[in-house]
């Protein structure tokens, strides 16, 4: 067992830290949506220019040819430094890399990596959330391509994206998972309309996409017709992938802020110390768990359904940290409490997005623990 960086990894980490000192934006993320979006694009372009994108991709596709360890170090250091949130580019690019044709890779990957073209993800629908495979957006074959029709929800930066990785139904035959396909849809195609969705904390980066008889070329199909479910699964696993250490580092940074704000009381009040200690222990548990998962990725263990453990653990730690902030920042006259309150409210989304906690438990029960005899086991 070894939890320490190798000399090469330590060198990589050091090089990244040095780069971050001069390149990390000094100003905070703007609150206004359009400004925030430009801010994030600028950050993405800075990362690209610095050679920090697509770390584990092969070099011929613009990657750095590194491994999962460097990717994890990257996420950890950015989380710890309080870097701006990343646009959903690298994991969507990863999907194009693994499922796209040579032509699709050549057409889309260079602009995606350089953040010249912004992508978004169109999976969930108003009536297909946890039951994603029940989605009803249709793709009908026509002479020179497909006609898309339906409605998507919870698309981050939908209003600003140039391209969308879209999941649609190409067949009603067989099991509902089998009739899905993935499409690369330009967001400026006639028939695409986007409307913003304001979240409970005032955040407005999510959008709803209305797709009314949108015509796309045959080349817009990713993989074969019917590959949609498999592509969706791999998108979700890439999305989570190496990010776990990044989340842990981000939570640890938030905990540091909380410590500063609780201040003096933490030195004298035992009940405050105990509440802080509870969170500190959870952060340590999450960190060690993430290192264990990283060790497995380095050993080329393909992540399977057991990664639902990681999501449940991560959500629990985040929500416990935010609940602690509610307990400890109890000065209602303070602007700080309002800020933590916004974070706390948004934290409730953690157990809903990316597969709700109930879905994660179903996955663990049926696919890891082998409970539910009537289910087809993997």
């Amino acid at each position, binding site marked *: 067992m*070894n939890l320490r960086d190798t000399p090469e990894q330590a060198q990589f980490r050091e090089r990244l830290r040095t780069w971050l000192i001069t390149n990390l934006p000094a100003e905070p993320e703007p609150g206004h949506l359009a400004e925030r979006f430009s801010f994030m694009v600028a950050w993405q372009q800075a990362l690209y220019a610095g050679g920090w994108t697509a770390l584990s991709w092969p070099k011929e596709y613009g990657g750095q040819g590194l491994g999962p360890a460097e990717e994890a170090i990257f996420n950890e250091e950015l989380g710890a430094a309080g870097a701006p949130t990343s646009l959903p580019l690298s994991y969507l690019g990863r999907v194009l890399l693994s499922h796209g044709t040579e032509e699709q890779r050549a057409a889309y990957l260079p602009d995606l990596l350089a953040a010249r073209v912004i992508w978004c993800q169109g999976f969930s629908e108003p009536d297909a959330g946890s039951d994603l495979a029940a989605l009803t957006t249709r793709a009908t074959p026509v002479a020179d391509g497909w006609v898309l029709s339906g409605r998507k929800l919870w698309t981050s930066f939908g209003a600003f994206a140039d391209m969308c990785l879209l999941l649609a139904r190409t067949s009603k035959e067989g099991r509902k998972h089998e009739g899905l396909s993935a499409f690369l849809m330009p967001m400026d195609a006639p028939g695409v309309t986007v409307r913003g969705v304001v979240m409970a904390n005032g955040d407005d980066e999510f959008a709803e996409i209305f797709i009314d008889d949108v015509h796309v070329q045959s080349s817009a199909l990713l993989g074969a017709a019917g590959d949609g479910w498999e592509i969706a699964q791999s998108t979700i696993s890439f999305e989570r992938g190496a990010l776990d250490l990044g989340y842990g580092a981000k939570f640890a940074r938030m905990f540091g802020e909380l410590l500063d704000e609780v201040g003096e009381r933490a030195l004298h009040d035992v009940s405050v110390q105990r509440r802080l*200690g509870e969170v500190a*222990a959870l952060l340590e548990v999450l960190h*060690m768990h993430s290192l264990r998962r990283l060790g497995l990725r380095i050993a080329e263990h393909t992540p399977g359904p*057991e990664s639902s453990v990681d999501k449940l*653990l991560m959500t629990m730690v985040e929500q416990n940290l935010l609940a602690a902030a509610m307990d400890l920042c109890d000065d209602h006259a303070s602007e700080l409490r309002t800020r933590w309150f916004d974070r706390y409210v948004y934290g409730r989304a953690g157990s809903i997005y990316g597969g709700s906690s109930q879905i994660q438990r179903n996955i663990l029960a049926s696919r890891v623990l082998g*409970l539910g005899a009537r289910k087809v086991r993997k």
Partner: protein
Amino acid sequence: MHTGRDRISPDGEAMPFAFEEHERLLEEAARHYASSVYGHAFLRAALDDKDGRVRAESWSRLAGLGWTGILVSERLGGGGGSVVDACILAEALAGSMAPVPFVATAMGAASVLTACDDDEGLIALAAGRPMCLTLDSRLIWPSTQPNLAWDWLPDAEIIQLGPENAVRRTQAVPTQLRGPDPLHPLAVIDDLLPNDRTSAQSEAVRRALVVVRAGLAASASGLARTALAEAVSYARVREQYGRPIAEFQAVQHICADMLVDAEATRSIAFGAAWAAENEGIDEAERVAAAATAWCGPAAIRVVESSIQVLGGIGVTWENDAHLRLRHAQLLGRLLGGAADAQKELGRRRASAAEKASS
């Protein structure tokens, strides 16, 4: 190296560890040995054995395997193993509820004797001599006035820290308590000298405490792992309303939560074991305190849930589930348990933040 399984195996592992090859082999051998020796009949014999002979014999057999001296250096007849190795054994033994004082003796007493350079004691310990650490009645160590021997075996020597971190080994005639966990008994010793707390603990003694905490965490992981496996295999066969209870989502979600607790326990337990030897003392203490804060409560949750899935049968004397709960409760309280560890962590973080800002 890892085995790449993505389904739970009969011994209840969903997620392997990126262990080295020798660690994986040790784990396999330890689990095999523990599960084949400490079955239901053996545990019942140990329960009925008032003078502790069954447990004492069991300890001698572990000495024969070289497990009692796993942390003793090879020069003194020990195995020269790492804390991770010792935790692999602790996890396997607790998983089978082995009625032996592995953490108290092979990890605790061994690290204290090592910290105090007591070569003679270490030679005896590796050869299978029973030895006990002393605690106060709240199960805290080191303390001013100890009066309990933790995990008592007949004829055990009592290990105490004397002045200047010198170790004191004495023979005592204790009174065994009924206590919460009959397989890991506590015994009252009235005539102990006070421990010395006037001089600051040496780093070696602090590290010994870290090793004990890692061992307790690994034991909690073993208990959680087998409690989960027990619940899962029962849920698959127990039928109500004409189908296995494993098909009910209410039961499935209990088991899924047990899995999260068990896997997280394993991650922090071995993280603490690794840090105990590979990190500076402050960092090692921090991870060990986090392990103590998490693992006891998590193991208790998992064992309680396992009893819930077993239903009425799980609360009978005849079923071994209560033995697991008893051990989990003992582990969860030792060295101040989660409550003290949380306070310690909060205090550490608060004073570190204070130092950073001033």
